[in-house]
């Protein structure tokens, strides 16, 4: 039972208000990120200088295997280092793609042309 004098808002008004609140929240978050932009640039420049001085090549997100720690530096067979055609057993292997020029060859049962 509503209190006397209370006018229940229309459904469309409620919906518009909800969307407005979410949009304002989104705009606020983006605004905060933009305000942080200058600090981000400084941080990136510092990181870039360190990486250049040390000659770093890859992100240090997955340190479990050398081909996940340095995917750009790992040799082409390193994902199969435990044996030919051995399936990858590191969890990060499902996130890191093999080198881009890996796997051009294919298995065939046909006789090679001589």
């Amino acid at each position, binding site marked *: 039972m509503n209190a006397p004098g209370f006018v229940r808002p*229309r459904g*469309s008004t409620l*919906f518009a208000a909800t969307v407005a609140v979410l949009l304002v*929240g989104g705009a606020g978050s983006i605004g905060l990120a933009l305000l942080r932009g200058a600090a981000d640039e400084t941080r990136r420049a510092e990181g870039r200088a360190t*990486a250049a001085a040390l000659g*770093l090549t890859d992100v240090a997100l997955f340190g479990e295997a050398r081909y996940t720690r340095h995917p750009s530096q790992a040799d*082409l*067979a390193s994902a199969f280092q435990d044996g030919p055609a051995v399936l990858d057993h590191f969890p990060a292997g499902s996130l890191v793609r093999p080198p881009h020029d890996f796997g051009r060859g294919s298995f065939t049962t046909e006789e090679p042309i001589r």
Partner: protein
Amino acid sequence: MSTLVERERHLLDFAVASLARRPTKNLGLTLVYALVVFLLGSVMLFGSAVRREAAAILADAPEIVAQNMVMGRHELATGADLDALKGLRGVRRVEPRLWGYLWDSAGAANYTLMVPSPTDGAHAVAAGESIVGEAVARARKLTVGKPFFLVSPTGKFLRTRVKAVLSDASALVSADLVLVDEASFRTFFGLPADRWTDFALTITNPREVSTVSEKASVKLPGYRFVTRADIHRTNEALFSWREGLALALFASSLLAFVILAFDKASGLSAEERREIGILKAIGWETSDVLRMKLWEGVVISLTAFLLGLLAAWVHVSAFSAGLFEPVLKGWSTLYPQFALSPRIDALEIATLALMTVVPYTAATVVPIWKTAVTDPDTVMR
């Protein structure tokens, strides 16, 4: 015009009231919908933010890295090969590098041990000193001046004192680094004097990188030459959408959600069917019923999409996608603490909308249309 707007507004009012009559069901659906958007949105925002961050930090990566290869495996580079590369036209400088991996059983983590370049004054380390990455310092509770001991696979001991901890700014690429001096590195790993991990080449004219790389590979056919473009391509491919885990996450959650939405719509309750029947009996056109149901879909979709996207944004920008940490970490112990700044990309948002709103609409509109076109008498019976 205003009549048209007012008409749609009334339909929207009716749709909201209709949703409010089944609060638990519709709220649950909206939350699950928002969760799907949050999950997919987080993966998208996180992937693109990490790729952008890596590209920015690694913009000045070595122009060419030359690795010796034997039987498809990485082999140490030799002094003779160093001289061969030095004599190559177009190569300004060849920097022999020393770096390798060490499994530290005390910290149960893999470190990347490295000798900083002699030209790098900022990271110069003397014998008995070390500079450690942010995650190493955190995992081993190291601060400047504290002793840091390492044990080699052959049992050799390396005693160092922490000279500095690398800043958080480069944590994304340097978290697991341990920098030591050359003599200590060679003694620790038992490396002879004229052996290095690889060579970093600086090219006189950056536009000649591929030409120099080709010439170098003719001179040293056993070597693999990784250019800066290769490095960037590999990093660009990180978390690519085609990848296993992310894709499985996408596919399974999306499929579950589509099934849920389809089930919800095709299993229109007797009450809902009766409602549609009454509306048609009192003069609503099929198109009115469809429009009202479409508004219901818009209310659920838009609310869930905005809610999920906002939550994904906060998750990535404020918490560096902390929920993904266990997945990304895998078996590794060290995980960098780094700041991420996602960017609003219209194409990404459109893709996300396409992947979530379209399956939902497709799964709900057909069963509703089927009910709406049925004779009111049949529907109400």
